[in-house]
């Protein structure tokens, strides 16, 4: 496959350059900046899940001492009629404008309907209470079945299902349908010796980043605004804010603060346009931060889903046909990861006959946002559970069944194209060979395996490289560092230039001081921005060779760049002393001025990344409580640039996936009000809930990246859902189709089985 390459730094785990500030409390996150003369913004949120806004009277609030500005939907330009949210979050800009501030209808409990800016948070709260809103309360639509049923109350009378074979003039809560198919499924099922079927439901879940959204906007009298915020995508935030407020992009400067987690959730704009507008009206800097409760109620969790799967196989395990039906909650507006769910459901397998039918459904819940491998965990949970059932029916090892059908280079993916080089079989073999797969289980415990996948992304990135006068290197790029990416950039730059890691620093530029980059998301930063950094470093090397050539008075092609220094090509000019980066930088004034380079690109060829997870757990048969005994995450990283942070991605994704599998869920009451909008009852894993998470990094390099990077952030959350469900199946002998596998659900299943 690929020859082994001896890298000096790639694959090591040096301390991150921003580390000291993060362990001493110096690093500034979204809510950590305060500006002189700043005031505080707060949002009034709908107390109803579905209501028409008939009238808003802000006069009493506006008249209160200490209140500087009050805004409602009427203060915004009309929502743009065209355009999609670029790259990441999905949906139309018009709808996002309505998420940011409701116009004629409030579509979920917590939907923003007005905002105030006041001298203190206390006054802001009092002003919110003084705003009078007259609502016409409408019946909320709260689950997929109800929303899809004929005659269901409509969220949007102008929503006509997209992609139907025949255009429809009947409005519906089904925003979009999608069909993917190949071959003849009826014939495929006829060839099958064994057929398994299952129906799976997973409720809405939240990314659960620990830092609530926060920003501070400082808008001047000319309408120019500087916005400091925690974001995965300050360039995309600038673009959306400009469109929602009908402003010139050039009048907006976005500075990304340090970011306290995102997982996709901070690719979506909520507060920033409100802060800019309030600041414009108040002529003061306006700081806004969400409470934890607001984060749960009013930001974008991921879709709740309903999937039905049918898979057929011959006695030897060869898959003959599969069908999937899936409905994804979009929340209040269209734009869900249903498409990705449909494309990934069968993605690990070489399938001749399949059909996938997907539905994206509007209901009175917050508009979903991106969450790590959006769409894949839900659909692959269904398929990977069915594969486990199939292995049992066939009396086959579940990894062998997967190996028998695994996709490889040249296999046609369900979404059409043939796979480039991929590492699925390598991961499956690594799992089979892993001691954790064969280690004896304690009495009564269960083991489950599952496969995960993500496409990984390219998109646009820019990077600049400056060589300082002492030969140290400054890399400037535009992707907020959410999990150690500065360290990865430093490694790639140092490796390429041949200089020590410590001599490179990476900065995240604001929107005015560096080139455009899309979000830190989709596992694209190390791949795409890393590629830009490497290219810019290669340009520096070319420049250094030219500088050395003029310094020595020889031809450029007689100069080589080896181990961070210019040396004369062997055989000639042997008397010349090598010139290090520091030597060249010191003499730069005489050879053409400062050394700098830049690269910008739209990265193509992100390498798909597969994973295999092994979960061991024990079930308390009297209470239904699950104890995770061991967890092993195996994943093809292409190439791990910073080994420890790659392991960290695998471990963190595993923990999130386990949380989702075990206890996390949005719990709604009949009025559409989330009942567990806090960390107390939205039960994310705590330290004592988890064992050590073993990792095994498989490296099947991506030929499209100079160091073979595939991207690692998304895939790790996919497999834990089914791996956990399969382990429970193994432990108690019962297939529980729905998540989370919370104790009441598990105990009810045990009771129903007569345990």
């Amino acid at each position, binding site marked *: 496959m690929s020859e082994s390459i001896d890298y000096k730094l790639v694959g090591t785990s040096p301390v991150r350059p921003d580390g000291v500030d993060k362990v001493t409390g110096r690093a500034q996150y979204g809510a950590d900046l305060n500006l002189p003369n700043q005031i505080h913004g707060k949002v009034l949120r709908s107390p109803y899940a579905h209501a028409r806004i008939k009238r808003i009277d802000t006069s009493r609030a506006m008249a209160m001492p200490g209140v500087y500005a009050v805004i409602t939907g009427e203060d915004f330009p009309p929502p743009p009629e065209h355009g999609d949210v670029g790259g990441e979050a999905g949906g139309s800009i018009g709808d996002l404008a309505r998420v940011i501030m409701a116009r004629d209808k409030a579509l979920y409990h917590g939907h923003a309907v007005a905002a105030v800016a006041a001298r203190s948070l206390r006054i802001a709260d009092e002003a919110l209470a003084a705003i009078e809103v007259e609502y016409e309360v409408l019946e909320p639509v709260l689950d997929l079945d109800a929303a899809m049923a004929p005659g269901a109350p409509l969220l949007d009378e102008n929503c006509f299902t997209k*992609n139907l074979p025949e255009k429809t003039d009947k409005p519906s809560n089904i925003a979009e349908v999608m069909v993917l*198919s190949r071959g003849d499924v009826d014939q495929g099922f006829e060839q099958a010796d064994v057929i398994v079927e299952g129906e799976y439901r997973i409720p809405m879940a939240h*990314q659960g980043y620990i830092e609530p959204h926060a920003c501070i906007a400082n808008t001047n009298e000319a309408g120019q605004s500087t916005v400091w915020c925690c974001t995965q995508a300050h360039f995309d935030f600038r673009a959306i804010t400009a469109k929602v407020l009908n402003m010139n992009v050039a009048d907006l400067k976005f500075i990304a603060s340090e970011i306290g987690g995102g997982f996709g959730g901070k690719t979506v704009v909520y507060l920033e346009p409100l802060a800019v507008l309030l600041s414009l009206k108040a002529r003061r800097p306006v700081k806004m931060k969400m409470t934890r409760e607001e984060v749960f109620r009013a930001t974008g969790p991921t879709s709740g889903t309903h999937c039905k799967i049918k898979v057929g196989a011959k006695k030897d395990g060869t898959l003959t046909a599969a069908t999937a039906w899936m409905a994804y909650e979009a929340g209040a507006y269209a734009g869900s990861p249903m498409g990705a769910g449909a494309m990934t459901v069968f993605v690990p397998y070489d399938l001749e006959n399949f059909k996938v039918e997907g539905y994206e459904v509007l209901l009175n819940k917050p508009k979903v946002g991106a969450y790590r491998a959006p769409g894949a965990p839900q659909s692959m949970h269904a398929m990977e559970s069915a594969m486990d059932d199939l292995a049992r029916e066939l009396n086959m090892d579940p990894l062998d069944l997967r190996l028998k059908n695994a996709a490889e280079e040249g296999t046609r993916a369900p*979404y*059409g194209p043939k796979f480039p080089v991929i590492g699925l079989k390598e991961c499956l073999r690594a799992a089979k060979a892993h001691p954790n797969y064969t280690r004896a289980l304690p009495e009564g415990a269960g083991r489950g395996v599952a496969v995960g996948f993500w*496409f990984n992304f390219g998109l646009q990135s820019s990077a600049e490289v400056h060589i300082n006068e002492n030969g140290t290197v400054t890399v400037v790029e535009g992707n907020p560092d959410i999990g150690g990416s500065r360290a990865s950039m430093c490694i790639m730059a140092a490796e390429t230039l041949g200089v020590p890691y410590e001599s490179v620093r990476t900065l995240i530029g604001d929107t005015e001081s560096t080139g455009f980059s899309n979000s830190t998301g989709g596992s694209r930063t190390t791949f795409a921005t890393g590629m830009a950094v490497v290219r810019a470093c290669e340009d520096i090397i070319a420049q250094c060779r030219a500088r050395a050539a003029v310094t020595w008075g020889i031809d450029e092609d007689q100069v080589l760049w080896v181990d961070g220094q210019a040396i004369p090509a062997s055989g000639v000019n042997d008397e010349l002393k090598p010139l290090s980066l520091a030597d060249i930088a010191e003499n730069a004034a005489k050879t053409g001025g400062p050394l700098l380079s830049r690269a910008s690109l*739209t990265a193509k*060829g*992100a390498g798909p990344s597969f994973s295999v997870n092994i979960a061991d757990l024990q079930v308390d048969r009297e209470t239904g409580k699950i104890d995770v005994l061991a967890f092993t995450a195996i994943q093809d990283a292409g190439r791990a640039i910073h080994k420890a942070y790659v392991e960290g991605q695998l471990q963190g994704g595993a923990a999130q996936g386990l949380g989702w599998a075990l206890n996390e869920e949005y719990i709604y009451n009949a009025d559409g009000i989330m009942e567990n909008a806090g960390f107390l009852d939205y039960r994310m894993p705590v330290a004592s809930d988890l064992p050590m998470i073993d990792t095994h990094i498989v490296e099947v390099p991506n030929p499209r990246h100079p160091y073979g990077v595939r991207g690692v952030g998304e895939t790790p959350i996919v497999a834990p859902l089914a791996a956990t469900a399969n382990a429970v199946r193994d432990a108690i002998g019962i297939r529980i189709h729905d998540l989370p596998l919370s104790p009441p659900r598990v105990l009810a299943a045990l009771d129903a089985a007569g345990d």
Partner: protein
Amino acid sequence: MAHVVFPGHLLAVTDGEAELDVPACNVRELLAALEQRFPDAGDELRKSTIAIDGLICQDAFLETLRPDSEVFFMPRIAGG
């Protein structure tokens, strides 16, 4: 001449055509040719992610196509 494949959800805008051969040397030419043939499809097609011979491109435009290239139109994908 690129071989173009549309997924099911685009058939509504391609008059039900799932596969066809289009003479084009790059994606720009391909999109222009398709837009001419399916006037309703332009917006959807330009928004799509395109896979060219297995290589997934989110903003394809200038990529060259070989005479035997396989081009797949895919839904745009979100990422976390």
